[in-house]
């Protein structure tokens, strides 16, 4: 019984990580209907950037994120402005293929620079610290921080979307780019800002990816799939739905692992397919598309 309760708690915390992976994807889906196949590889890229900043300046990864985030904001802004904006328009294929090409370029670029070795972000004692809850169950400090950060990111994104001028521009452009343009909004600029913001979220996700487990250049696509599953399970267009989707996925994986350790990933995928079969629009849908 304790083992199962423990699995549920760990699943909830793991869900925080998946919600962080998914939040950036959800943001891009929401604003520009762009499906970014390089999302997972971008998370891994950001983790390597944090690693380099940590090593080069001897900083704590939590501090290194503060340096990496603005750099990645600019990178995201530039990527959208220079490359991805050209692919948007009626046709589905260009954004998919360009981001797919990007995914392969990032993976192999990282492989060339950092080799296939596993890496990890180090923060000292806090890594293994845990808070006992009694009854033989304990929660790790880092997993707990992950979930709390995920909630904070969701709250912040909701605040930006529904309480600020730029958020109004995001929503307006998302609803109808042409009408938004008539209202004096430069939708290409708005898209670039949205991608920059998504890259900041990616940086935060990368921090916890690197703190919780080893990473190497090849693990990006799997993170993309988790992020995507969380978004679809939660329902498109709702950040809180994305958090819920992440948690459902995390729970499914730890419950699967509890039955048989080899079933962890498979159980997550099957939960996603089950949601798709029963509630194709996700658990908390908001958007139509």
């Amino acid at each position: 019984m304790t083992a199962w309760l423990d699995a549920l708690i760990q699943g909830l915390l793991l869900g925080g990580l998946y919600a962080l992976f998914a939040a950036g994807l959800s943001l891009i889906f929401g604003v520009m209907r762009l499906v970014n196949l390089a999302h997972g590889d971008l998370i891994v890229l950001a983790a390597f950037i944090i690693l380099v900043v940590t090593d080069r300046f001897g900083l704590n990864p939590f501090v290194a994120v503060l340096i990496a985030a603005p750099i990645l904001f600019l990178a995201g802004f530039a990527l959208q402005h220079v490359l991805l904006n050209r692919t948007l328009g009626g046709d589905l294929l260009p954004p998919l293929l360009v981001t797919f090409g990007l995914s392969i370029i990032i993976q192999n670029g990282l492989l060339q620079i950092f080799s296939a070795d596993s890496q990890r972000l180090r923060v000292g004692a806090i890594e293994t610290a845990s808070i006992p809850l009694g009854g033989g169950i304990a929660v790790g400090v880092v997993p707990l921080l992950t979930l709390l950060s995920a909630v904070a990111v969701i709250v912040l994104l909701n605040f930006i979307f529904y309480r600020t001028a730029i958020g109004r521009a995001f929503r307006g452009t998302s609803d109808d780019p042409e009408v938004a343009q008539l209202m004096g909004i430069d939708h290409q600029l708005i898209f670039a800002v949205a991608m920059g913001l998504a890259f900041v979220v990616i940086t935060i996700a990368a921090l916890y990816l690197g703190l919780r487990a080893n990473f190497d250049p090849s693990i990006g696509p799997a993170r993309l799939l988790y992020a995507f599953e969380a978004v679809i399970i939660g329902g498109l267009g709702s950040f809180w739905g994305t958090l819920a989707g992440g948690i459902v996925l995390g729970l499914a994986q730890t419950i699967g692992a509890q039955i048989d350790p080899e079933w962890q990933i498979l159980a997550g995928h099957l939960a996603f397919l089950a949601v798709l079969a029963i509630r194709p629009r996700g658990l908390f849908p908001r958007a139509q598309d």
Partner: protein
Amino acid sequence: MTEQGATGPALSFRIETAGRGARAAAASACIILLALALLPAVAGRNLIQELIFLFYMLALAQCWNLLAGYAGLISVGQQAFVGLGGYLLFALTLLGGVNPLLAIPLAGLVSAMFALPTALIVFRLRGAYFAIGTWVVAEVYRLVFAQFKPLGGGTGTSLTPSITSSVPGIEWVKILLDLRAPAARDVLSYWVALALMTATLAFVYLILRSRRGLALGAIRDHETAAAGLGVDIYHIKLAVYVATAAMTGMIGALIYLQKARISPDAAFSVLDWTAYVIFITVIGGIGTMEGPVIGAIIFYLMQRYLADFGAWYLILLGTLGILVMLFAPKGLWGLVSERFDLTLFPTRRRLVAEGEDCHRA
């Protein structure tokens, strides 16, 4: 001309498909096919193996092109059916004792049976979401086969020599071409690959020339308009998805008969069986039958001369794909055919006016 054109009897229209270029292309295609079929008599084993690779990549690209270029089903999960076909071949021959050549069409049939329920789930996702959904399904297939212990689980398994040499006709080839057993097996695989590639081309061509093909072309050009004209989009897409899964499964079975060793990570590799195939189709020209042919030949040459550069080669391939998508979205064939108004596989119908004045003009 004033009276005649208006009253009509002298001015009629006919629908033309094959142009002069296409007829010449059909004739040369027959000659090329014959030459390729006879090639093992003179070619070395290396060339034969490289051509097997070219043939199955071309066949896979042609299938993906039908799926993505015509039916608008952009799948990033076709490795599901390559791996499934491969594993079915291993299961049928190793566990079921079926002859390998018979196992190839059976693998296609079973792949189609798997594709139907798969489609019912992934078709709930639209457009770009469909793409990632198919990828998830391919991962599910990979993880399930990694759990299947009779075929080696996560590490995979090999075909026994008694199976690889039980392909019918192998003795005949050994005597005819004076070869050892492994080389004779390659020659047989080569012929099967050539046949499968030709069958794929013929299959795609006949579909596109049929009434269904007209509907597919309409979907490619404008899905909403096609639906408005009464095209049953859902069922056509479903049929294309299942049919390409069957073809892809057969190609997968052939690939792994030739490789004689299978593992889940290799058989369900997104890079080998989907990324390369997408680049072939896009670089050559998506939405045409000629595109994948051009793309496969370019890919074969790049693979041959650049694959040793490893990661750099893949970076180059990714960059090339992006550049083509941005600056020549119809691919290399698109550039050629626009410039010279050329078609090799005449799948388009043209309206030709014929009347006295037209003949004069």
